[in-house]
Each structure stands twice: as C-alpha cells, then as structure tokens.
C-alpha cells in the first residue's frame, strides 16, 4: 500500500476520481490534491510522496513544467511520476516523457488502468534504483 500520493489536476472531478480509486481500494493511504501547478509547487517542498500524478493541460503552470520542477528538486528527483492527459497532442506526450514522467496515461481511464499504471511507474523506479544503487526494493 502506498502511503502518500499527490494528484495535480485542475479538475475537481478528476481529483475526486483518482482519490476514490486509490483510497477506496486501499491502494494508497492518503491522496493529497493540488488544483494547480502553483499548489503543487507549494506542496512539494513540504512533503514526501510515493507517487506523483500530473495532469498536463492546466492553466498558468502546466503539467510539463510541474514535471520538470519535480525532477529538478532534490527531494523528488526519483519519485515515480505518472502524466495523465487526454489523447492527442503527441508532442506533449513525447515532451512529458522526455522531461522525466515515467509513464503517460490517456484520459479517460478506468480505476483499474490507473492502478496498473501506478504500479507500473512504482515498479519502474524501484527497478532503476536497484539497477543503479543496488539497494533491494
């Protein structure tokens, strides 16, 4: 079970959906919500997360920038990160992955596909830590 998951999305409905999907299934203990890139920037330095879920299409500070900043910060450089966005905008997808998102999940998604993707990014990060540092997961 994950302890803390951050979801950054300007849609209340999506955040509620993600929270319900994770908390109700016992997949995460608590889902922290940020309704904008700014809120995410405020939350990030003060907390530690097991997974960060970022929507790409947000006003002002959009998801690509959040991804860049998360990766640039010491505390979260290696946090598993999942980008969520509607299909289309293939450049955005490439850029999100290039900036350090571990996976991309198209909206709309089901709770099951969300959980699978989260497991995927957690697995991937754990694998890369094992590969580099040799620390058992």
């Amino acid at each position, binding site marked *: 079970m994950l302890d803390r998951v951050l979801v950054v999305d*300007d*849609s*209340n*409905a*999506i955040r*509620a*959906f993600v929270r*319900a999907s994770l908390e*109700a299934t016992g997949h995460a203990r608590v889902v922290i919500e940020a309704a904008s*890139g*700014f809120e995410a*920037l*405020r939350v990030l*330095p*003060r907390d530690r997360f097991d997974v960060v879920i970022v929507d*790409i*299409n947000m*006003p*002002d*500070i*959009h998801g*690509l*920038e959040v991804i*860049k*900043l998360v990766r*640039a*910060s010491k505390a979260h450089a290696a946090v598993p990160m999942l980008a969520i*966005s*509607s299909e*289309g*905008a293939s*450049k*955005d997808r490439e*850029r999100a992955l*290039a*900036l350090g998102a571990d996976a991309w999940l198209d*909206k*709309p*998604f089901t709770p099951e596909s969300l959980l699978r993707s989260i497991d995927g990014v957690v697995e991937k990060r754990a694998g890369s830590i094992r590969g580099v540092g040799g620390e058992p997961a």
Partner: protein
Amino acid sequence: MSDEADRVRDEFLSESQEIVEALSRDLLLLDHGQKHGHADPDLVNSVFRGVHTLKGIAGMFNYRELSEVANVLEDLLDHVRLGRVTLEQRSLDVLFEGVEVLQRLLGAVRGESHQVDVASFRHAAHDLLGTGSPPTPDALEAYDLDPSLLGVLTEYEEHRLRTNAEQRVPLYRARVRFALSSIDTDLDGLKARLKPVAEIITYLPSVEGSGDDAIELEILLASSTPLAELRLLVGDAPIDVVPLRKGGSQTMPPPPSRPEAGPIVREEAPRPITAPLDLEKRGGEGVEGIALRAVAKTVRVDITKLDHLMNVIGELGIVRSAVGRIVDRLGARAELRQLASELQRIHRSFERHLEALQDGVLDVRMVPLGQTFDRLARAMRQAAREDTKEVRLSVTGGETEVDKLIVEELIDPLLHLIRNAVGHGIERREERVASGKDPVGIIALNAYQKGSNVVIEIEDDGAGIDAERVLARAISRGLVDASSANELDEHAIRQFVFLPGFSTTDVVTELSGRGVGLDVVRTNIARLGGVIDLQSAPGIGTKFTLTLPITLAILSALVMRVGEQTFAIPLTVVQEALFLDPDGVSLIDGREMISLRGTSLPVVRLQELFRTAPSSTARQYVVVTSLGQRRLGLVVDALEGQQDIVTKPLGPSLAGVRGFAGATDLGDQRVVLVLDAPALLDEVLSSEARFLAAPEPARGGYA
C-alpha cells in the same frame, strides 16, 4: 462505497455544469471581441481548455455522447486556436451550437431532458473543419531558441510563439520572483498589468532561482510595446525583461549593449526603473509617447489615495452646499438678485463638474462582484462535499460593480451565508426526494443595482426556517418575552436569528434553522451601511437579501430637524417621508401606530427618544425607515433636504453611544449627528418586539 461513487459523480455534474456555464460566458465575450476586431487568443484557449476538460471527465464517467460532442467541439476549437479555422460569425455560430448541445446533454444526464439532436452540430462542425487552411511555414526558425525551452512548451504554446513570430511581434523573456505564499495574487496582478499590451505565452518556473519560499518564473511574452515600458509594467518585483534574440537579421528593438552569454540574453542585474525619465528626455513624442499613455491606463493605485480624493470631494460637496445657501440668501434680496443669478449659474456649473469628478473617482473604485462570486462558488462546492449535499449554484449579476472596500468586507459575511445555506438550508437527497423536490438543491446568488444601492440575494430551495422553533429558542434564551410573542407574525419571529445570543454551536444540530453567527453577519453588513433581511417559507426555501451602498465614501442623507437639533439619516434606509396626520395616530398597547396604505406602521417621536426640547411646530413629518422588511416611522419637526455627507467618527467620549453612526459638517458651521439606522431600529424594535410592523400583503405567501 456507493456513497463515495455518488459523491464523485456529483463532482462530475457540478464541474461539468460550471464548465458549460463558463463556456457560454466566454463565447459571448469572444463574439463581442470578434465583432470589435479583436478575438483574444487567451479566451479561445480557455474555451478550448474547458471543452478539453469536459471531454476528459465525461469520458471518465462513461457519458459517451457528451464526451463525443465535446471531442468534436475540441477539434474545432483546436483548429481555431491554432489558426487553421478563422474565428468569424459562421464558426462562432457552430461553437455556440456545440455548447448548447453540451448543455442539453448535461440536462439529459441529470434526467431533465430526453432527446438531444447532435447530428446537426456534427455536420456543421465537419463542414467547418473542411475549410481549414494548411499551416504556414515556420517563422520560429528565425529565432535562436534554446532547445530546452521548446521542450517544456505545450503544442499550443509553441503555436502561439510561432504565430507571434510570423506576425513579427517581438518576443521577450521576463524573469520575476514571487513568494510561494502569495504567488496567485502576485501573478494575477502581473497578468492584469501585462494583458492590455502583451500576450503571455507561458510561465516557466525556473529551477535554479526557486527555493522553499519563493519561486522564480520566466514569462515568455509577445508584445509590440517598447521594452522600457514592459519593464515598467512587469513592475516592482526584482525582475528583468529581455528580448528573445533573433539569429538572422535584426528587426527586434535594439538590444542593450552587453556581452552575449548565449541564445537568450539576460541583463546582469535588474536595472532600476528609470525608463520613463529616458522617454521624457527623448521628447515623449511619437510611438513612445503614445505607448506611455497606454501605460498610464493600467497604473495601479493604492486605495487609500482614492479614499483621500474621495474625502476631498466630500469636503468640496460641503463647500458647494454652503455656496448654495448663500445663493438662496442673496436671491431673497431684491437689490442683489442680479448677483444672485450670476452666482447661481456658476454654482450650477460647479455642481455639475463636482458630480462628474465624484462619479469618476467612484468609478475607479468599482470592481465587479464576479470574482467574489467565483470564490463563493468554490466555497459552496467544498461545503457541499463536506456535508455530502447535492447543490447546484446559479449566479446572476456577476458584472454588478461595488466599491472595492465593500467587496472585501463582504466576502466573509457572504461565505457565512453560503455555508449556512448548504449546511442548514439544503436538505439531503433522500429528504428532498421524499418531499417531492428536485434531488439536487439550488442556491441562487443574484446581484443587481438598485438606485445607488447594490442588492445581493442568497436564496436556497431548502427546508426553510421553522418559525416555531426559532421562537422557542428565542424564548428559552430570554431574548423575547413569551407573553408578547403570540402577537408576532412568522416573518418577525424569524428575524430573531439575527439577535446576538440567539445562536450557539449546538443550534446547528438542534435546529434546522441557521442561527450560527448571523448576528455577526448583520453587524458586518450594517458596518458597511447595508441592511440584511431574511425571508423564509418552510419547505420552500430561504432568501437573504443584502442591500448595500455602492460606495462607502459618500453617503446620501436626509437632513431633518427635531426641536433645535439637526440630524441626518442615510437615505439607504429611508423609504419615504410624509406628513404626520395627528388624527391618524392610534395607540395600540401604549405605542403609537399610523396607518400607511393599509398596513400599520409603528412610529417613534425622536423628540421623546432623544429627550430634546419639545417642539413648537404645528406640522410634523414621519420619515419611514426600513431595514429589510422591518419598518419604523421617525417623527420629526422638519425636513431640511437631501445632502451628500462625509461621516466623521464620533469622539471617544461619544463612541459608545448607540444610535449614532457619527457626525458630519453641513457646511454652515453646523455639526449634526448622523443616525445609525440599523442600531436605532434594533433599539426600538427588537427590545419591544411587539411594535414590529405588521406583515405586508406581498408577504402573504410566506406565512
């Protein structure tokens, strides 16, 4: 678990509804902009984003048709924002149609409507997409763009960058630093300043400059405004604005001479803002001169400076009335009549200009209520989520303007009323269904201007306030005497919720009414010179009506005389004035009442109330004051007319006296006391509750 699912679905419904409402609003603005030759790309993008979000969430919640229509609309908007389809009447029509279809589909989701024809919209959108022109060659290549910059732009931002480059609009990078705690407001301020002269393409948070408490942002701008002015507008934060350099031929504004450090050139240190002086030295003519005036249009002013101006205007108003009185005195003397009429002309012209000046300063202080309403909408959603209530918000009059200071003071009382409406007004779904209501509650927030007042209504279609329980509570708290209670009508009883001491926290659960801190709400509204009224019908709903002055700076008052004393009372509470017919006064329970168009009105003689010297006037007047639905007639000796006054607070020795809001100088060396109408009505009416006005016929429905 299914509760949780319902909650998530509610989120979907309320957010979708909000999006569709915002879409209609933005489309109207776009339509207006297009007709006036400027369709704001930001607005197009915000419409796009709204539709995009709607498509996403509709898909997540399995509303396939809604998602598909949003998808078509999104495609269309994507073409519009990327410049492949021009925004013109035809495309706007199709966009409007699309939003209308979304609206109806949402209605269908809520079970309000059934058949929705989406085919005609699909066809229209399809036809329009067919007319798109291919994208033009890449003008961005002329710029030496940092590849890491392009890497964080969304496709749309890249497009806007390209379009501006194509149109030869100079591009800039501005570096600003904000405290994380205040970044939202700081950024809003910056946006407001830049918006008239520049397009903000993106915000790039910078990794190096950001710490735990502050963040450095690079803002990518396109603007035809000279660099020096952009620097000015970006403003007070430690910042820097530099042009984005072109690789090839120079068509950009001349860059400051300094070594080139890379493709993106930055100033070494923020320069002190000396640009306006530079411009003046150059003569201020030509392009710079014009653009500088554009800067003046967006200058930000500390509100205390406006307060000062308003005070001066108030004093000028006092001078004006003094001159007016001299004109009258001169006019009364035959040999000075010529002089009087000349002075009269000058006086009138002075009056006109003064009014224009006052209107001008007032206008500067005005802000629309829309932003406040948005905040209330968010608070309502949150309250609904916490209380697991289903509520829809309907808002009208967001464009109504009110004095900035009033808006700020209004937020807390309004938040309070909204939370009350959700918490104690709207019933749970099951209860609503059981009583045959729409399962989703409605809270309506309406604002409109009424003379020199602004009226804000907060209305819910909830359970209403049970007068009997209010009365029981008021009696148990010793606020009202049980024996006099049976003479009160229900409306009067409900007003007890505003009394200090009526509410305690246990009221929330014990009573379906809403006593929590309403006395504070009323006090705050009264402090703004406003009044609050409450109407409620059990099972039907509750409506709070706030009547507020548009500005605090100047008060229109009625000046009246009682014996040797002169008083002023704010016109906001004066309903009318009439002669007192001594034979029409009847004594009911030892109190004087008069009949006013078929209803009885309690009256109080100010001469008795304030124990001034008895008057010798034969004819007296009744000034009918009303505070929401409560009315009281004040008996005075003479009416001296209406006057704009600037109220000064009473000295410390008098500050504790109830019934007076302050004092004012009428310009003829007379200092008069300004009556605090809400306090006065309270004093007279609530301590002697039986003197409350009888119900008006119009309130018959609320029995």
